[in-house]
């Protein structure tokens, strides 16, 4: 245990050198040509400041839409096949109706067909169909519900990315979580309110005529609120053009009305539709509807054939800019709800780092003094391995680009406290061995041998706790788990390997002297 081959000694110092190589750049900014690495520890949002926003897609409108279209399709097919039905009921994700039992076989063959019940993937089906004596129940399968969510998620994440990019945030991290969530991490952002505002709008834009009649109950008309004034409009449901036909939108300023506007440009199809509609409806009001609110409803004076238009609505320049961003980035397929938000200001992050470092230094100082007091020269060896340990932990974090969080710093400090445990175990064991063994070399050798299983057993239990934390925890807690786990592994190396080497040098030199611990 006390013999180290040249190769072993070389390896130990190689590991330490690599550690120092990756450790230093974290504390000094170096110019690029310098031979040292520029890889630094990745700071978590709680240390560098920033926002963590978790969004959830509200898929209900999409499921609604799907069930409506399925019900239309089904009724059409039923009529086509001359199947009479009554009590047709449209639920949240189920359709049901009654039928004459005599037609059961026709119905069965219709429903088992692919016309209505489409396949999803190789084995999935859209619908779960139950046909009783004279009632049929048709339910959306989980496969279908998940597919709806998945499609919406894929579309949404693109649009979310567009909107965030428009605001020019640095290095946003946007990823999907589970089947219906999007995680947005915005490092360095102090106030996420603007982004939250942008993400909170689906931004479905439609151009629809105001109704000529004032009959609220007539079909094809809905009553919508104005976005600014306390005012209601009767708007036709028929859509002339929608946001999909937009190819560009920019904020602008209208000299005549002296207010901010949004100028937009339509694609060819949209321009053609718009030209036709405007030509035939001169004198009517065209409502510009965003998310079921009427922004404005100007009167059409001329046919608009260029495909260029302007939306005015008493905007401030900020509002005009926001609307332009929303229109450019496109509409979300479904509303997004913010279900979790955590924001830390950059100065609080800096303060946390400072306090973390101060408590690390004080904690270390206390442990160092304690070890020297208890074990004298061997305490010094333990302290040297403690420094090596700290360097290795930081360098491993840098190499793997792991994220250091505030609890992560606490994890490092905790490691400092626990790291000397292996030394304590060894030295206490040595004391015992020295009592029964005359030779210093043999006493140390046996102590190191005997204590190995104990060190492994005890560290593995902490490692298990760290792994559970890593897999179950989120954000900052994960950071704690990472430093705890790295700390345990590097502690083993620095105390049992490097520390043993230091001790071996001393013991070999003093093999015939009385060694006191």
């Amino acid at each position: 245990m006390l013999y180290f081959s040249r190769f072993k000694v070389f390896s130990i110092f190689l590991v330490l050198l690599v550690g120092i190589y990756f450790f230093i750049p974290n504390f000094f900014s170096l110019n690029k040509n310098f031979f040292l690495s520029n890889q630094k520890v990745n700071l978590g949002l709680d240390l560098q400041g920033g926002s963590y926003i978790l969004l959830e897609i509200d898929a209900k409108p999409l499921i609604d839409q799907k069930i409506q279209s399925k019900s239309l399709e089904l009724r059409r097919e039923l009529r086509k096949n001359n199947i009479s039905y009554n009590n047709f009921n449209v639920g949240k994700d189920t359709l049901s109706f009654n039928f004459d039992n005599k037609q059961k076989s026709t119905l069965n063959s219709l429903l088992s067909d692919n016309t209505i019940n489409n396949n999803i993937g190789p084995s999935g089906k859209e619908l779960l169909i139950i046909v009783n004596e004279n009632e049929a129940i048709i339910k959306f399968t989980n496969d279908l519900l998940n597919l709806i969510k998945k499609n919406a998620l894929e579309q949404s994440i693109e649009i979310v990315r567009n909107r965030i990019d428009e605001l020019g945030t640095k290095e946003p991290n946007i990823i999907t979580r589970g089947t219906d969530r999007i995680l947005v991490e915005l490092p360095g952002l102090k106030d996420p309110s603007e982004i939250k505002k942008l993400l909170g709008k689906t931004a479905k834009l439609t151009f629809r005529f105001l109704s000529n009649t004032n009959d609220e109950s007539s079909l094809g008309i809905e009553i919508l609120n104005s976005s600014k004034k306390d005012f209601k409009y009767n708007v036709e449901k028929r859509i002339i053009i929608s946001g999909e036909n937009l190819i560009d939108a920019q904020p602008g300023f209208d000299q005549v009305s002296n207010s901010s506007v949004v100028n937009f440009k339509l694609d060819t199809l949209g321009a053609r539709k718009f030209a036709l509609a405007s030509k035939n409806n001169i004198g009517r009001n065209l409502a510009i509807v965003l998310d079921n609110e009427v922004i404005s409803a100007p009167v059409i004076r001329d046919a608009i054939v260029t495909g260029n238009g302007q939306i005015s609505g008493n905007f401030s320049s900020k509002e005009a800019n926001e609307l332009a961003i929303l229109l450019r980035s496109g509409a979300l397929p479904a509303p997004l709800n913010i279900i979790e938000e955590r924001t830390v200001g950059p100065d609080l992050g800096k303060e946390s780092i400072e306090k973390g470092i101060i408590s690390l230094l004080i904690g270390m100082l206390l442990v160092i003094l304690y070890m020297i007091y208890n074990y004298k020269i061997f305490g010094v060896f333990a302290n040297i391995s403690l420094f090596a340990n700290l360097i290795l932990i930081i360098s491993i974090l840098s190499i793997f680009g792991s994220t250091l969080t505030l609890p992560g710093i606490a994890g490092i400090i905790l490691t400092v406290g626990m790291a000397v445990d292996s030394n304590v175990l060894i030295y206490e064991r040595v004391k015992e061995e020295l009592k029964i063994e005359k030779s210093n070399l043999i006493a140390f050798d046996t102590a190191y041998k005997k204590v190995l299983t104990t060190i492994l057993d005890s560290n593995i239990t902490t490692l298990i706790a760290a792994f559970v934390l890593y897999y179950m925890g989120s954000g900052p807690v994960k950071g704690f788990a990472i430093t705890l786990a790295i700390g345990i592994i590097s502690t083993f190396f620095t105390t049992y390997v490097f520390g043993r080497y230091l001790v071996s040098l001393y013991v070999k030199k003093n093999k015939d002297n009385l060694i006191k611990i």
Partner: protein
Amino acid sequence: MSLYDKHYNFLKFKNVFMSISLVLFVISIIFFFTKGLNLGVDFKGGTVIEMKFEQTNNSEDIRKSLLKINLGDVKVKEFGSDKDFLATIEQKGKNNDFVASIKNHLEKDLNKKVDFRRVEVVGSKISKELTRDGIYSVILALILMLVYIWFRFEWQFSLGSIIALVHDVIITIGAFSLIGYEFNLSIVAAILTIVGYSMNDTVIIYDRIREFLKKDDKKELSELINDSINSTLSRTLKTSGTTLLALISIYFFGGEILKGFSFALIWGILIGTYSSIFVASPILIYFKVKRNWEEVIDTSP
């Protein structure tokens, strides 16, 4: 200075310590079900805002001001200085400019500039998930420990150590209920660390018990266990000592955010060290640990 040469009889009063532990355990459970925990937004849902004013302020004024707008239950406490405050608000804010509106209101109402340094909004769905994950993770950690010790030792050791761990976890939760410190995600992390640490302590004593069992199968079991505790006592206390030194440093200098976390760890180290000596070890006597470690004696004729 070393405690090594001293020899204490830890098992003499084992029934007394077991009773104390049992009482603490039961009291903790009673507290948990009657007083409950002061759950943070992680587990309850709601909004937490850490704010800094330019001038000094007091928490009652801030609370009164916040109550003027409809936010549900509002708690405000000083957070490190008389310019820093932490507000816990029941509402989660359906509206996306919820936080901005609170800030506007405060600045107008108190006529003081305020900086929101940290904002956490947790919806009820997330808080339920976090609660579930937190409970699962503690149970999972306990099961893994159980399996590991079973694998490395015998079932008696495994059971003994798990009883000690459950004891530590419950009494830590009881302490949080009693003191009313906020119970949040980082406290769960602390509890898991305590589980790991307490196990670490226990394993070291168990290791020694096993070693002595192999060496000597004549000695009275309680005497043997007592020897094991004594011979590892110096290590147990020294390691707990250094770990506590590091943790006390976090508690006093690590800032407000880490206060509850480091408190949980300090408490846990104390209770974990206690339980390794006074719960996990003596309990082996009740379980009748296997004595013949070296060879299996064939008893068949």
